[in-house]
């Protein structure tokens, strides 16, 4: 019996040492940041699909440039709608300010075990009140984020990775979820006086759920993107 206890204790120690899983939020976030910092810059083609029930927009093909720590430039030849919150998300942008984090629980996303962390920014001027992160510790990547802001409510981002194509912690797809205020346009502006449109107004909830699907392809990573791309052509 004594020997069995010793064996169990040794196994426990061994597992604790070998396993990369930890419950320390600071270590988890540092590993995510270190992994992301392998990417100095990138250029990527994106396809943006907007899904809001009262809004019909053609899919947009565009190009995004990123440079550490938080420079983002968006280029599109056609009109595009970008989610106001979270479109320029990066772990380094999220964690560059002072914050406090704590571990909540284990969870599963698409059969992958993830650690759920809460991150609270410490700055008083920050718009973000609270972010919840679902972190895949086996790859040190964020798989899901839910953020509550002071001004724009809560939004969520799901990140999908295709590591067969890209060996960096960069997503192949991001799904943004948020609430959108419904349209309420005075009749004189739209010129639409048909009664059909009035019937549609019967659904009088003030907001509706919106989603934006962004697919990333053809990553060009660490190619040394010059700063002038971010300076000269500011995001509109």
């Amino acid at each position: 019996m004594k020997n069995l206890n010793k064996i169990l204790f040794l196994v426990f120690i061994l597992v604790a040492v070998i396993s990369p899983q930890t419950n320390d939020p600071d270590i988890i976030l540092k590993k995510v940041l270190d992994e992301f910092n392998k990417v100095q810059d990138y250029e990527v083609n994106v396809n943006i699909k907007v899904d809001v029930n009262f809004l019909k927009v053609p899919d947009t093909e565009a190009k995004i440039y990123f440079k550490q720590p938080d420079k983002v430039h968006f280029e599109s030849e056609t009109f595009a709608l970008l989610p106001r919150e979270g479109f320029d998300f990066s772990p380094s942008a999220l964690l560059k300010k002072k914050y406090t984090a704590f571990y909540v629980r284990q969870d599963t996303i698409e059969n992958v075990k993830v650690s759920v962390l809460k991150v609270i920014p410490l700055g008083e001027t920050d718009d973000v009140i609270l972010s919840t992160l679902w972190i895949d510790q086996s790859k040190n990547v964020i798989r899901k984020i839910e953020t509550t802001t002071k001004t724009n409510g809560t939004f969520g981002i799901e990140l999908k990775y295709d590591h067969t194509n890209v060996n960096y912690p960069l997503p192949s797809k991001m799904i943004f979820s948020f609430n959108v205020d419904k349209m309420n346009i005075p009749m004189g502006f739209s010129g639409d006086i048909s009664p059909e449109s009035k019937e549609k107004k019967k659904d009088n909830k003030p907001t509706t759920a919106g989603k934006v699907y962004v697919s990333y392809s053809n990553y060009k990573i660490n190619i040394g993107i010059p700063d002038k791309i971010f300076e000269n052509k500011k995001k509109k």
Partner: protein
Amino acid sequence: MIFSLISIELSKIFRKWRTYIGFLAIAVLVPIIQIAMLVEGEKSINFMTRNLQQSFIFVGNLLNGYLISYAILNALVVHIPFLITLVAGDLLAGEATAGTYRILVTRPVSRFKIVLSKFLAGLIYTNLLVLWLAIMSLAIGILVFGIGELIVIKNVNILILARNDVFWRFLLAYGFAALSMTVVLSLTFLFSSLVENAIGPIVSTMAIIIVFVIISALDIEFFQSIRPYLFTNYMQSWRSFFDDPIDFQDLYKSAAVLIGHVIFFFGTTVYIFSKKDILS
């Protein structure tokens, strides 16, 4: 024979200064709207999409030639009928006013051909006016503001059409607007056959259009039930070309109703004119 009659009628139309009022009005109004849109257009778009801009960043230029042409078409398609009536009201009644009715019908031409040639001349004028509107708003709009995606804002919906998916819609919308204006022409033409002065047909037609449009716009249950029986209800169907998907069934129905009205008004005019006792 009919072609020479039409050319005679056209020369009569284009010899009168009132014919050019419509072209002049469009030539003055459209640039004014374009300048106003250039100055205030961005603000209007921001106001209309303010809810959406809380959730989205807009990248690109929505203030382009297509949007301005769409706004002009929305604004002027209600007023263009007045410019049509100015000429259409004079087509038959003008002969009575000038005292040339008797000379006209004593020529070796059937009364039907006289009415038909006058109507076709009026139709050419109507189409030229709509074409002029298209050139002024679309061609100059594109030249000055360029092309881009077209944002179509209805009361509760927003549709953004890709830039390569807009021009053909405008062509069909202008075509439909021309059909709508043909109804106005034929109604004024009918009234013109009844009286001996052009003022009556102009005022009567405009009164009918204004009353019908007001009834259509009022949000009262009783008026909504009679709405489908008002031809003005179908004159706005050009807007359907800016839907996605386009409800072609509804458009065919609207076009059929409008063509039916043209045939009815024209047929009635032919009947009245052929039975008319010419005294002047």
